[in-house]
């Protein structure tokens, strides 16, 4: 079943065409990772999908319905920004339930508790962001993105500012959430390794606004850190590097 459909989306800023006739289909429980050099429109694209900016042409559809200018769709797509962007004045628990307050939805205590448990933040509920490590802050940001139980989670270079070990842990966390919650996600990254590890499909954006899609299939092999040492993993990496 298709969860998300992006159809003929284009966007330009002044005379600069950033996105040109872009199409994407995301199936339930699948992941698409977008890679590309700086300035190829990766962030613009995920902001269009998240409803933060409007496309010049084209449409974004969720479960067969267009969500352009549709406020009822608010919360159906979760958004995780580049930096954790937590409110310093709020404790972890309050930061996680913030989207519920913004969307004026009933604060289900069990949902918030579940998100905190899923992201392994138990015991940190009463901490302020400044008391957490960067990796923990990013976990809070992930929990916040998931609290409205979205159909799709959109992540804009979420692990760019964390160290390699924390990044690896967060990648595994995301794959665990994908499996546990049957989560569909779209992620933007600069890291080819991260892209191959997380994606079912990779979209490589080019400077001229064109793009290519690659299916990632490791067969029955599970996505563990060991996968990164396999021949197929290296082949996928080389293929994408050549496309960039």
């Amino acid at each position: 079943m298709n969860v998300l459909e992006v159809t003929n989306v284009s966007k330009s800023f002044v005379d600069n065409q950033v996105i040109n006739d872009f199409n994407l289909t995301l199936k339930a429980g699948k992941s698409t990772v977008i890679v590309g050099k700086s300035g190829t429109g990766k962030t613009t694209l995920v902001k269009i999908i998240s409803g933060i900016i409007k496309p010049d042409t084209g449409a974004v559809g969720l479960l067969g319905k267009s969500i352009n200018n549709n406020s009822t769709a608010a919360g159906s797509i979760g958004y995780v920004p580049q930096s954790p962007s937590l409110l310093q004045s709020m404790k972890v628990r309050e930061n996680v339930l913030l989207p519920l307050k913004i969307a004026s939805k009933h604060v289900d205590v069990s949902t918030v508790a579940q998100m905190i448990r899923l992201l392994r933040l138990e015991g940190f509920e009463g901490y302020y962001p400044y008391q957490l490590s960067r990796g923990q802050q990013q976990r809070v940001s992930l929990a916040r993105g998931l609290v409205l139980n979205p159909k799709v989670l959109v992540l804009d270079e979420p692990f760019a500012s964390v160290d390699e070990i924390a990044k690896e842990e967060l990648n595994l966390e995301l794959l665990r959430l994908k499996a546990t919650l049957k989560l569909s996600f779209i992620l933007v990254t600069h890291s080819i390794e991260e892209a191959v590890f997380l994606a079912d499909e990779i979209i490589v954006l080019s400077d001229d606004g064109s793009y290519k899609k690659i299916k990632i299939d490791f067969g029955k092999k599970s996505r563990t850190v060991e996968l990164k040492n396999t021949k197929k993993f290296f082949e996928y990496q080389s293929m994408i590097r050549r496309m960039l």
Partner: protein
Amino acid sequence: MTLHKGMHIVFIVLILIAGFVAAEVIIANLSLHALKQGATPIEVFLPKPSSVIGAYIENFSHLNEDLFYTLYRSMVGLALGALLAISISFVAFLSTSFDRVATPALQAINAFPIVGFAPLLILIFGQGSDSGIIFLSMLLSYFPIYVSISHAIRNTPKGIQEIAIALGASKYKDFIVIRMSEMKGALISSLRLAFPASVIGATVGEWLGTGRGIGQLVTVSLYRFEPEIMYAALSTLIIVNLLALWLIIRLERKVAPWA
């Protein structure tokens, strides 16, 4: 060299005692020297600390009553200043047009020597009335609060602003749910500047004749040639300001530890 916490207090007390003794000796000697030379002794305008303490004890209840008037006026002025600052920030956040006009206008008003307009304000509100003094106190205290909270409102993380847009939040909702929370720490921090400013406003207003208040006491003691009372009154204000600063810092650590 690091000192134990208790040692800090002993150290400060020793410095105060040393300063007290030094001031006593220097002022007494300078006054004696001036008398011998046939000049005006320094003690006429700079009394010895012991005389100031004596004046404080002698006028204890009178000073406390005046302090109450000054603090009451400055507290009301501060509260109104905070309310004004929050209201302007709220409207400026909701309306970009208002923001474009109000922000430069407020900065321009703050550039005015407001204290210089004190006589005019007292004339407008009527001599002996609390309103003029409270208004002056409000004018001096709102600006540091406004600058601090409007900075906090504008510097909310970009990511959370994007989430609000994605969730279709109105500007009103954005202010109430997101910005108000970020404003809390800034509001408390701004009191470090706004509280002394409100006390200055009230004191200057009282100079111009209100019957009661520390400002009025300073003026009267000056006319009566009682410098020790004037110093006792001003020292009381300094102590109150330091005490308030200590309380604000404690409150900040308790309520807004991230600030």
